[in-house]
């Protein structure tokens, strides 16, 4: 019996999964904090504890995400674009396009029926194009991240942001509140702004259905609705969108092992 581990060190959160015979056994998430190495070690310890196995039982580990280089115990590092494609392929084999919204960037990935990346586009290094924009606004509105989606759905009158910058957007949101705009309208405005950025990426790679959303953005029903409206497509949402990339990494660890044989 072989166990495999996928470790995804994201800019905000570190996610890890353990698989056995292609089955997902356990997953775990913790904040990446400032020391990715520590996060990676803690994540492994937690995963081992959950599955009740020891480090030696793990046949292969693949690390991914922006902090992948800090996962000293991994056997290989792969880009999160690849592992996200693999992961979504396992969850929804019919998916040909996946929108991955993380804290640091958004990306649109096209993939083959076997989960290989066939095309991709990544957002610029600007917080206004990533999940971080939502965090920033949620924070100033004093709304829990979990609540922003449902709240945004209630909006009837989304505001239009006059700036394309997350930082100025923050002050604008504050002023809007002081002006008497409803929080849901402000949130819906941010969701729309981010969805527009995603549409631009989508134009570049071309949409092929089925289409799914992964990453932390997949937890946000407000964002999902905005993207669906923009692209005029229904999005498949995996049960645990934030673990898709880590799952993909574990799958790649399995593949690596098979290649050896």
């Amino acid at each position, binding site marked *: 019996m072989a166990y495999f581990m996928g470790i995804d060190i994201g800019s905000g959160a570190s996610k890890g999964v353990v698989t056995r015979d292609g089955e997902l056994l356990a997953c775990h998430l913790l904040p990446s904090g*400032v*020391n990715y190495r520590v996060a990676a070690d803690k994540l492994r310890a937690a995963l081992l504890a959950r599955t009740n196995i020891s480090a030696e039982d793990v046949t292969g580990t693949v690390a991914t995400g922006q902090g992948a280089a800090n996962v000293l115990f991994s056997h290989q590092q792969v880009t999160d674009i690849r592992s996200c494609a693999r992961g979504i392929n396992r969850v929804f084999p019919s998916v040909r396009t996946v929108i991955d919204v993380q804290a640091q960037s958004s990306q649109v990935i096209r993939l083959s029926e076997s989960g290989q990346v066939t095309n991709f586009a990544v957002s610029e290094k600007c917080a206004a194009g990533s999940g971080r924009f939502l965090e920033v606004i949620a924070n100033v509105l004093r709304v829990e991240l979990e609540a922003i989606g449902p709240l945004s759905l209630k909006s009837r009158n989304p505001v239009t942001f006059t700036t394309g910058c*997350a*930082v100025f957007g923050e002050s604008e949101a504050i002023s809007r509140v002081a002006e008497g705009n409803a929080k849901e309208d402000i949130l819906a405005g941010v969701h729309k702004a981010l969805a527009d950025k995603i549409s631009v990426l989508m134009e570049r790679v071309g949409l092929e259905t089925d289409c799914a959303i992964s990453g932390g953005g997949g937890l946000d029903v407000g964002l999902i609705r905005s993207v669906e409206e923009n692209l005029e497509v229904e999005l498949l949402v995996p049960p645990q969108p934030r673990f898709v990339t880590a799952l993909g990494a574990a799958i790649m660890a399995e593949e690596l092992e098979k290649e050896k044989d």
Partner: protein
Amino acid sequence: MTPGKPLYFAGIDLGSTMTKVAIIGADEQILARVEAHTGAEHRRLANKVMEQALAQANLPFNEIACVVATGYGRINVPFADRQVTELTCHARGIASLFPAARTALDIGGQDAKGLKLKNGKLTDFVMNDKCAAGTGRFLEVTARTLGLKLEELGSLSLKSRNRVKISNTCTVFAQQEVISRLSEGVPLEDIVAGLHEAIASRAVGMLRQLKIEPAVVFTGGVAKNSGVVRAVRENLGGEVLVPDDPLISGAVGAALLGKEFTLKAREKGETVPRKERRLTEATFFG
């Protein structure tokens, strides 16, 4: 306005971060200067700042011959007789403080500007107001992240012997970089110095779109930060003049322009149309 009676002029600079008011007399002496946070909640309090300035000058509002508003909230000040852009006002204020000034850099909360001056007047300018990187907001966010006061950043960074390079341009992501550098044990002052360098090199890069001629003046709230001032000097490789109160130049310029408008109108036997001298709140999205 009865002739012979002393004339007073007020300038109000409603910035994104700070609201500044200056009141001057006909002799251009500054009789009052007040600076307060603009902040979202406080923004309606522009009238309060004006009130404080009037108290400082010991004048009833009615005595002010002309009120000129500037800054990015200038359109929303109901009691201002005229609105003038911050570019023109800063130029005028800077020229009155430093008659030799030919080039000026102004970094405020929401934008960075480069000005060219000739004979005390604005002749050319450049502006960055699209991205928070390179503006005062970058430092505000940093201070918040580090739990420091804005005022502390400057002197702290001057202690640095080995500043770090901040690789993220985006303000938001740079904050994260700051945190991870800290956790790596990089001394605080080296990080702050790195941030100052980032902001200075960006601003100077923008300023270079104008032909830089001495004397060069550095104003705006960020010029209060001695670390950025040093970094700007290094980047320019030359002397940079900083006024004692770098915040006020826009408001002073606005007041000076108020005087000019009034005198010009008088020459023609006219008066500058006056708004009601009532201290009502400013609005936002006018």
